[in-house]
């Protein structure tokens, strides 16, 4: 099942010739979403080079420039395109750095849930019996609680366990909290397709020639059940980023020394009443932009990979 891969160039050529690329070219929604997502990702990844100021460098802050409105306002300065916050930080730069943290936490959580979910789903579907029953019961229970609640609880337990956690640990707890709530979907999907694949002849053939179960799972079944997982993962990125933002907004997410989009919104909320709407609205807009574009891409991918819809 792991066909020898052609050279990289061959793979690229096949991709541009293939159905998925064709469907992408003919879906204006997907192109717009992809461009939007790409802008966000580039701004986030290259924040260190692209951002006009460094919001984490305390020495460069000037309190005289605090709470400036966006540049198009008569009171704004051209130097700060989207205005500044209460400490004189440039909002645009803070957004870029914040988006980087949001994306990082989101992607790490999705990757971890995928590993946990796919692993447990394969195990449940392939081995069956008691193990299957137990894993599926756990899934049922977790599905009956909203994910934000489970994430909050895991985060709360983590905080109670390590009350004086330093930054790296705080990030680990946060990522664990988000991924331990997200794996259920993967496990259920993978279990379903594994149950189907298990009956097929190539699995029986592999069994007959004495391939070990672990190897059959990894080398033969896994590649055949990954399709739906990719679609799930795309949409899950948006959910994970929003969950992270919500937790950070509640003040139990990323450490305050490395503000994510949610933290920026939290900080900005205090200034709504004194009229400084830009401190909280711009991070909100970016958050919605990222979530929306990723969701649209996920929807498109689901349709593009589903042969029945063509």
């Amino acid at each position, binding site marked *: 099942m792991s066909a020898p891969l052609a050279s990289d160039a061959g793979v690229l050529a096949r991709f541009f010739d293939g159905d998925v690329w064709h469907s992408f070219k003919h879906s204006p929604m997907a192109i717009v979403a992809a461009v939007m997502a790409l802008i966000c990702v580039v701004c986030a990844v290259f924040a260190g080079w692209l951002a006009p100021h460094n919001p984490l460098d305390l020495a460069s802050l000037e309190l005289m420039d605090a709470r400036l409105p966006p540049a198009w306002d008569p009171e704004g300065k051209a130097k700060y395109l989207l205005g500044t916050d209460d400490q004189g930080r440039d909002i645009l730069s803070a957004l870029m750095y914040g988006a980087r943290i949001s994306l990082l936490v989101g992607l790490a959580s999705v990757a971890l849930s995928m590993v946990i979910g796919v692993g447990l789903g394969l195990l449940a579907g392939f081995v069956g019996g008691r193990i299957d029953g137990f894993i599926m019961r756990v899934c049922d229970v977790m599905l009956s*609680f909203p994910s*934000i*609640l489970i994430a909050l609880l895991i985060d709360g337990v983590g905080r109670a366990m390590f009350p004086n956690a330093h930054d790296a640990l705080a990030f680990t707890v946060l990522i664990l909290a988000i991924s331990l709530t997200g794996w259920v979907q993967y496990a259920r999907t993978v279990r379903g397709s594994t149950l189907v694949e298990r009956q097929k002849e190539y699995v029986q053939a592999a069994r007959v020639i004495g391939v070990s179960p672990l190897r059959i799972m990894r080398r033969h079944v896994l590649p055949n059940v990954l399709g739906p997982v990719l679609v799930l993962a795309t949409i899950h990125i948006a959910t994970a980023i*929003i969950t992270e933002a919500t937790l950070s907004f509640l003040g*139990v997410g990323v450490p305050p020394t490395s503000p994510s989009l949610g933290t920026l919104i939290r900080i900005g909320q205090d200034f709504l009443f004194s009229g400084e709407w830009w401190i909280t609205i711009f991070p909100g807009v970016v958050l919605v932009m990222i979530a929306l574009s990723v969701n649209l891409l996920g929807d498109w991918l689901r349709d593009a990979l589903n042969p029945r819809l063509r």
Partner: protein
Amino acid sequence: MLAFILRRLFQALIVMLTVAFIAFMLFQFVGDPVTNLLGQDATAEQRQQLRADLGLDQPFALQFAHFVGNAVQGEFGISLRQGRKVSSLIAERFPATLELAAVAAAIGLLLGIPLGVYAALRRGRFMSQLVMTGSLLGVSLPNFLIGILLILVFAVVLKWLPSFGRGEVVALGPFTTGLLSVDGLRHLLLPALTLSLFPMALVLRLVRSEMLEVLRTDYIKFARARGLPDRSVYFGHALKNTLVPVITIAGLQLGGIIAFAIVTETVFQWPGMGLLFIQAVQFADIPVMAAYLCLIALIFVTINLVVDLLYFAVDPRLRLERSSAGH
């Protein structure tokens, strides 16, 4: 049917015990309470005495049984941060959350169902397109952003409504409510609206798609052929048959509303259980966290149980199947 209920009850019990165990384990992580209470220079006898008083010298299983016994009576000890009994803290905050959740659920259902029916009946018209686009926003915007936007528009720019707190409340025995005073209602409006948007959008989309499905069926055509008025076809025949999935979603969303109340209460500084819990998480206030955990699990388990039982009440087919296949 009885066997089904018993099995359900047993599952619910297992879930509750698991949650209670997690809550119990929380206490094991916060370090030795004896040292915290007595300080560093207590004598060995004093320590031993306190250990015995707190029941910490008993075996693990017995301690857990003790914890469950107390939890059933609503006793979770004393809040580390506020120095008050957790049970009275929760009792004080519970009405605020219940009021917010109930009003949000009511808004969600009372607006969601009619709008869903409207969007299905007037499919393709401009207004129903508008409703559908709005519902998409309701599903995809994060809850706290909606709250902030509402505050910005109605409290900061228009200055129509207050944006934090409960305002004036009226006491009804142990219960407090803001529903009976104008000030309380004004305070309730924005948070309840924020909280209701997600379930409203979900119910709306569900009702619409179910209605479209049902309107295609033969018995609707037959009802029309019999010359029944539109209103009785739509609401007497069609809507009734869309209600089974709606009940499921509405029931599960009730749980979601209580969970998301944490976020809404933070945005609007609403003095409910969610705000209490989030402060407990920030300060690692274990007794409050444990109590909230058990209470919310109880609410969820109850809701799931009630939803399962409602199926039987609503869908006669299910009753028939169960009793013919059952024991």
